[in-house]
């Protein structure tokens, strides 16, 4: 590319007034309503938005790959000077994969399960480069190496199910790159991946983009990913782009009220223990978009004009434009949460919950007679204590056994060994009936608000179920009044009791799930990733609710999560799990501010921060989490640890106590290593 090339010459993609609608019965529901943006070679435009805002539909619309019900209702898509929307289908196929390639969110389902990696790569090479046979094979190997897959020869003949999640996404990227596209559309490329793998993939994408001077359209909901990847950012809300700015400007001087709210809703250290900003209300449904500004109903600055007239684009600085009637925001700093950190009194003498050497092993059966040949050590000796009114965060990547710990505590899964004591009483040996009084002391909130409520029961029935099963006497006020009271506690109206789960949004459903748990007045609530399926603004509402409930009712939370921002915001203590064991635990400050275990450090460094200045140096973890069926000898972490020594390879480290609350299992800190 010559130096004299102007921006316009390097412009790859120009989208103007793009409108996309979905057929529903006899009507068309607009999902994308007049979107304009450009992507130039070598730059990354991040399309940021919450679920349902139309960002994925936009991406699919560019490639004309909308699902059967989708229609491009109007607008222009110009790619390298060609109008894609009027291109014949045969020519469009040349653009797909050749000019513009796309990678998708779910690597597990986006690859064809019955074709080899080599086949799926070769298809693109044959289609766009006319390669076949040996040259195609060599090019495939090159591509696999380029995306960081070791042992490429072997992988070429393997099927997707033989690859780990991160590797599948690497193959997906290789497939996308195979046709030498000038523009890469990445639709939530790391959302389904663990944070350490996410960091690897994001690094890979950055590096490939720089090498190939590709343009990239990155679709994401994660401000952290945006901070790491984007050149420019466009924020989408309800089918429209509401603000667009270069990255630096975006993170320092975003002006649209919605963008501001997105930042404010993110939990982080500054607001620990305080309340998070939330966006009241919900995105208006597709069928009944308001005539004025689409955000007006949820905007605290909205005035009469906002509701009447839709704002037009306004240029406020170079490359920074927004759709808002507001000239300047009132001082945003004033509304920041008051960090009224309510420190709960130190724990009482006896902990509420104490778990000792808990093990959950699942047998692996093989062979003709299905004999047990080994065990998946999902939980392998976990001990922890939790006091009334405190929150313990159990952190780890997928497959580390954190959810199993929660279910074993609730006796939903039988423990193989170890003890679980609630209020000093052992749960393991109790029969069903004797367990009942203890059951009401602890409850669980699940991850997926859509799978955790029975669609065929009314909200009242759902909430009342526990009261009935645990024979909780409600004579004083009656069941209906009790249900109404609980609904009120979680911020829902009493009338909700007569409605059914499908009438509620994700956040509201999670409130119902919380109400169900609260209905039996538990002391301990096990929260299994309660916000990971929710949008940031809704997550903030739920986190606030949980904090209020803890303050009011003195609940103890065992908070199972992979999200460090949430941990930071709400936990008192943190335990980090790796392959069925707790590798480091301590108070939230100790673990998050001065992590000691190499795994904890790597994990923390991989979390993309939503701020430009705060990103610590990324500690790259090689490989992926091994299978708990066959953990490495010695310290489970040693194959991925840069500081591993011989001792690490031989035996599992004992617990080293660093302070009254802080302990770690690593040979770096053990007594004999120090000697």
């Amino acid at each position, binding site marked *: 590319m010559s130096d004299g090339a102007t921006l316009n010459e390097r412009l790859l993609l120009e989208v103007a007034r793009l409108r996309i609608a979905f057929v529903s019965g006899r009507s068309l529901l607009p999902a994308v309503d007049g979107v304009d943006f450009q992507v130039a070679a070598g730059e990354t435009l991040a399309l940021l938005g919450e679920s349902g805002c139309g960002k994925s539909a936009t991406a699919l619309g560019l490639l004309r790959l909308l699902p059967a*019900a989708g229609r491009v209702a109007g607008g222009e898509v110009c790619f390298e000077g060609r109008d894609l929307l009027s291109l014949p289908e045969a020519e469009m196929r040349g653009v797909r994969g050749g000019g513009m390639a796309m990678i998708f969110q779910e690597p597990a389902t986006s690859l064809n399960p019955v074709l080899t990696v080599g086949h799926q790569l070769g298809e693109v090479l044959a289609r766009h480069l006319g390669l076949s046979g040996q040259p195609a094979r060599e090019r495939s190997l090159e591509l696999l190496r380029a995306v960081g897959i070791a042992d490429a020869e072997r992988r070429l003949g393997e099927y997707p199910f033989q690859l780990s999640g991160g590797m599948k996404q690497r193959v997906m990227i290789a497939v996308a790159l195979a046709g030498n596209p000038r523009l890469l559309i990445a639709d939530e490329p790391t959302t389904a991946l663990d944070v350490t793998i996410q960091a690897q993939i994001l690094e890979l994408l950055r590096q490939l983009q720089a090498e190939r001077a590709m343009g990239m359209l990155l679709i994401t909901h994660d401000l952290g990913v945006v901070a790491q990847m984007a050149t420019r950012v466009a924020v989408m809300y309800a089918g429209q782009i509401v603000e667009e700015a270069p990255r630096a400007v975006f993170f320092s001087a975003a002006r649209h009220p919605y963008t501001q709210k997105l930042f404010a809703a993110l939990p982080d250290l500054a607001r620990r223990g305080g309340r998070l900003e939330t966006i009241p209300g919900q995105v208006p449904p597709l069928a009944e978009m308001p005539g004025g500004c689409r955000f007006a109903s949820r905007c605290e600055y909205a005035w009469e004009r906002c509701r009447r007239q839709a704002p037009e684009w306004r240029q406020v600085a170079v490359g920074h434009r927004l759709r808002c009637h507001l000239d300047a925001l009132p001082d945003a700093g004033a509304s920041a949460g008051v960090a009224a950190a309510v420190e709960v009194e130190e724990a009482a003498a006896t902990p509420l919950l104490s778990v000792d050497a808990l093990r959950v092993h699942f047998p692996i059966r093989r062979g003709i007679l299905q004999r047990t040949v080994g065990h998946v050590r999902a939980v392998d000796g976990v001990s922890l204590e939790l006091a009334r009114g405190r929150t313990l965060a159990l952190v780890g990547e997928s497959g580390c056994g954190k959810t199993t710990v929660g*279910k074993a505590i*609730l006796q*939903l899964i039988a423990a193989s060994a170890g003890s679980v004591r609630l209020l000093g009483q052992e749960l393991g040996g109790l029969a*069903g009936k004797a*367990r*009942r009084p203890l*059951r*009401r002391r*602890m*409850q*669980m909130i*699940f*991850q*997926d608000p859509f*799978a*955790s*409520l*029975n*669609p*065929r*029961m009314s909200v009242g029935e*759902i909430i009342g*179920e*526990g009261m009935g*099963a*645990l024979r909780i006497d409600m004579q004083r006020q009656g069941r209906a009044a009790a249900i109404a009271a609980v609904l009120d506690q979680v911020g829902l109206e009493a009338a909700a009791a007569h409605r*059914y789960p*499908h009438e509620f949004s994700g956040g509201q459903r999670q409130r119902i*799930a919380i109400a*169900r*748990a609260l209905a*039996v007045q538990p002391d301990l609530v096990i929260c299994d990733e309660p916000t990971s399926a929710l949008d940031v603004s809704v997550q903030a509402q739920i986190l606030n609710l949980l904090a209020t409930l803890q303050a009011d009712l003195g609940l103890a939370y065992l908070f199972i999560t992979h999200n460090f921002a949430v941990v930071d915001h709400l936990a008192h203590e943190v335990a980090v799990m790796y392959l069925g064991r707790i590798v480091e635990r301590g108070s939230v400050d100790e673990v998050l501010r001065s992590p000691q275990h190499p795994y904890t450090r790597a994990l923390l460094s991989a979390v993309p921060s939503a701020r430009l200045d705060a990103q610590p140096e990324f500690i790259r973890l090689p490989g992926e989490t091994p299978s708990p069926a066959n953990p490495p000898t010695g310290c489970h972490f040693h194959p991925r640890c840069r500081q591993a020594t011989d001792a690490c390879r031989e035996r599992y480290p004992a617990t080293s106590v660093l302070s009254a609350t802080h302990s770690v299992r690593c040979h770096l800190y053990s007594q004999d290593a120090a000697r």
Partner: protein
Amino acid sequence: MAFLPVILWSDVLIWLLFVAAGVFGWLSLRNPLWRTAWQRVGRSRSGMASATVLLVFVLVGLLDSLHYRPRLENDAGHLASSDAVPGESAAGKPPAAYAVEVLSLLDAILTPLRTRNEKTYSEPLATRAYAKESIESRDAAGELQKTRDYPRLKHGGIHLGADEAGRDADIGQRLLRALALAILAWWALAAATAARLAHREACAHREAWRRIWSNESDFAWNAVLAAAGAVLLVALPLGMLAVHYHVFGTDKVGQDVLYQVLKSVRTALVIGLVTTLVTLPLSIFLGVLAGYFRGWVDDLIQYLYTTLSSIPGVLLIAAAVLMMQVLIDNHPQWFATAAERADLRLLALCFILGVTSWTGLCRLLRGETLKLRELEYIQAAQAFGVADLRIIGRHILPNLMHIVIIALVMDFSSLVLAEAVLSYVGIGVDPTMISFGTMINNARMELAREPMVWWSLAAAFVFMFALVLAANLLADAVRDAFDPRIAGSA
């Protein structure tokens, strides 16, 4: 009393099913998820049109499921007097005698069709028999003369008298009258529908009319009306002509084919519906048990259904039916009337069909239960210590019902088709029971006759096709509305 009610087992079951369907429908309308699913069915035009047609079939079947034995009329006055003072009949007079023959309400309505039997084959709408016979007659001179000719039918077109040439005109006239009546009836029906809709949606009559036909109502009234129109257009002319002619001809023993076809409907319905009374409890109970409790219960149930399903269906049915025949033949004392025997044989066939066909649904329900029991709302219930039976009743069963409903409607048509094949093979219903299968079985050699006798087969074909097609279309509509994968994407 002029009749003695006879309650056959299949009558009981079919009315029970009718009531159960009503209760279930009422219950399911109270739950909004079910209601929206049924509303989706209601919006499906093909579904509602076929439901209308099916309703007519069901009506015929229900009329045919009210049985009685008529009182034998020993002397003319006897019947009248006992009617007047029913209480005394037992005291003074000899006990009333009732016919051995069991009739149904439908038989009573169709008395002209049932009783006016010819000697043998006659073509549809014919006035004379299909084959020549030697006829003895006396000529003018009083000589006995033997001629070979097509003999005049005893009943078909008898009202014409000697004017056989006027048959076509007569038929045409009756058809026209029937047509006019059908159109009139249809207009009345359509107007009533529009009036009801106008009342319900509080709009003008004209507006309601427009909504019905421009497909803007929430219920596919246009399809219902169109189907009702078609039914009227077929039923009224048939009824008009059937009084004086054999519309579909007569069979080998001179029985009216239209009568046979109408009687076949009940047999088909019993086979298609009562069988599910056997399959549903078995497959729901065992499927849920296996999926929910897993472990050895699951192993045992899986073994059971794999073993059963590994015996090819027809062969298992054949073996079972053979054994049932032996059983029935060896115990004639069990049955008071031939109708009872045929009825029990029909039910036994349903039972055998049910026992051999529950495995598929059971496997499906087991798989779905396995999936459901891992869902978080079930775990939440378990965390409350809710009893297993309660979890099954409140959480699992309601979420399986859509599969059951889909299976129910899908199985109906295949069972009706199976009955025909089994009866043909000789392992179906009792040979004395009129069904599509026995009709086809009796008629299959008739195509080979010269000249060919085609009308029994054609009539059976048309009615069976209409019934099965309607059932299939309704099944499609129900599946589309209830299957969460399909309903979700639409």
